[in-house]
């Protein structure tokens, strides 16, 4: 009798797992069949166009790269800093508790709410307009709770004996954290950050809310340009304030068009986005694997 129950349970779990994988595979196969033929160098290096056959994803691709890099630059130091503070320094009082509960809740807030916040705060109040900077800051808010929580998680897995060994040699708390705890926790922190990034790269709603454009035929100004005269290189932050679009928004735009050709473009762009996400996730898995192998106390 117990045996039967167990078998039924195993069968059901297996079926549930297989169902998930099955639907995912169907989705991927469908997208690949629709879009693979459209993928080409031209597709990656052309601007969007009215004619589906000539349209490409250059501006959303570059836009996504800008947004991702800036989001990582903003959210990593702030998130890791906050994680260290909460885990290592904050006292165990009501105030800390309140912050912790809030961060946990923020991680579950629908992303469009972050879009509204970004619209009110960055676009309007700080008058940053519908710029790359507004987009990156909005996504920073979105991924911050995830990075803070994974940082704390990673710090907690560092064994107490390592801290003890450091203190016993006359290290200060700061030295112990910077030289022992943080390096030991870094792979875990990076894994969490990368997973947060792979979530951010697919976000559409908050960026549409803050008014990212759906059709753009130029790129944000490059931060570095080479010139013919001394000093031969110019740096510019203008790109931060330029309008932008990102891959998911371009896809959204294309699938809402009636022409069949745009639908194919959307499928091709989805493949690019999927590759992007898979690469990020593989990197995270690789880091975790390395981490487990190297760190055994």
């Amino acid at each position, binding site marked *: 009798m117990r045996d039967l129950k167990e078998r039924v349970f195993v069968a059901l779990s297996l079926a549930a797992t297989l169902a998930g994988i099955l639907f995912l595979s169907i989705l991927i196969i469908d997208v690949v069949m629709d879009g693979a033929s459209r993928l080409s160098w031209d597709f990656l290096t052309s601007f969007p166009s009215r004619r589906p056959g000539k349209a490409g994803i250059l501006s959303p691709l570059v836009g996504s790269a800008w947004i991702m890099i800036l989001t990582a630059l903003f959210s990593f130091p702030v998130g890791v800093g906050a994680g260290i503070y909460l885990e290592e320094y904050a006292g*165990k009082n009501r105030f800390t508790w309140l912050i912790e509960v809030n961060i946990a809740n923020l991680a579950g807030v629908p992303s469009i709410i972050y879009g509204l916040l970004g619209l009110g705060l960055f676009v309007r109040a700080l008058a940053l307009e519908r710029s790359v900077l507004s987009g990156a800051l909005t996504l920073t808010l979105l991924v911050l709770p995830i990075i803070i929580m994974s940082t704390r998680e990673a710090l907690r897995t560092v*064994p107490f*004996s*390592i*801290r*003890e*060994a*450091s*203190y*016993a*040699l*006359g*290290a*200060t708390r700061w*030295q112990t954290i910077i*030289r*022992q705890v943080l390096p*030991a926790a870094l792979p875990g922190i990076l894994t969490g950050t990368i997973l947060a990034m792979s979530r951010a790269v697919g976000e559409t709603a908050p960026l549409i809310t803050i008014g990212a454009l759906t059709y753009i035929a130029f790129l944000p100004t490059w931060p570095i340009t080479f010139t013919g005269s001394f000093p031969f290189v110019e740096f510019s932050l203008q790109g931060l304030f330029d309008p932008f679009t990102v891959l998911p928004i371009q896809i959204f735009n294309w699938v809402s068009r009636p022409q069949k050709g745009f639908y194919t473009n959307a499928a091709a762009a989805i493949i690019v986005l999927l590759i992007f996400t898979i690469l990020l996730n593989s990197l995270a898995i690789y880091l975790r694997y390395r981490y487990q192998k*190297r*760190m*055994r*106390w």
Partner: protein
Amino acid sequence: MESAFKIEGLNAFYGEKQALKAIDMEIPRKMVTAIIGPSGCGKSTFIRCLNRMNDLIPGFRVSGRVFYQGKDIYSKDVDVIEIRRRIGMVFQKPNPFPKSIYENVAYGLRIQGMRDRKRMDEIVEESLKKAALWEEVKDRLHTSALNLSGGQQQRLCIARALAVKPEVILFDEPCSALDPVATAKIEDLIDELKRDYTVVIVTHNMQQAARVSEFTGFFMLGELVEFDRTEKIFTNPSSKVTEDYITGRFG
């Protein structure tokens, strides 16, 4: 006999629970003092009071005084960092950093801001030699310390403690995770160390206490039952409880 530590009326608490009761004791300089007693009697708590390692435990507090070289290490104006640098510690379970052998030994110097690479190389070599580990690791100083055997890791931890040139080394059951060969090596090492250092060692092993120490303190239920020369404790203890314990009638 010159004393390194002078302990007066030391009480220690974990929250409400009292772990040490009114301990009075004088630990001699440049000798080995063993701390013995049944499990849970407060040996670790006691030894960790000597370099304030217990400060790390939330809810822990002490009352009474612990003088080290005439200065109460629990008084307000004492620099804990300095205390821990001068009074080193080796733990029960070897706990090397997940770094190279070299970096493990050099860590204490680096946190003091030492930059001189040559001087650092010298100290690392000297410390590994003192810990009788140099011959075994000199060709792989820059490989991970985690690949060493348990006994080698424990000697590495001793080398690491020696590198910062402490005056005292506290050992909390340093051999309990080691086999007899590795244990013998550590004991020889402790015998060497007492020429230059004050050593306090917690041990569960009576023979070990008898072999390595000049003085022995017997703890029970948070109290110091007896403290005397090791020969006296092991041949002619004043207290009946001590006698019962060392003859193995309980504990």
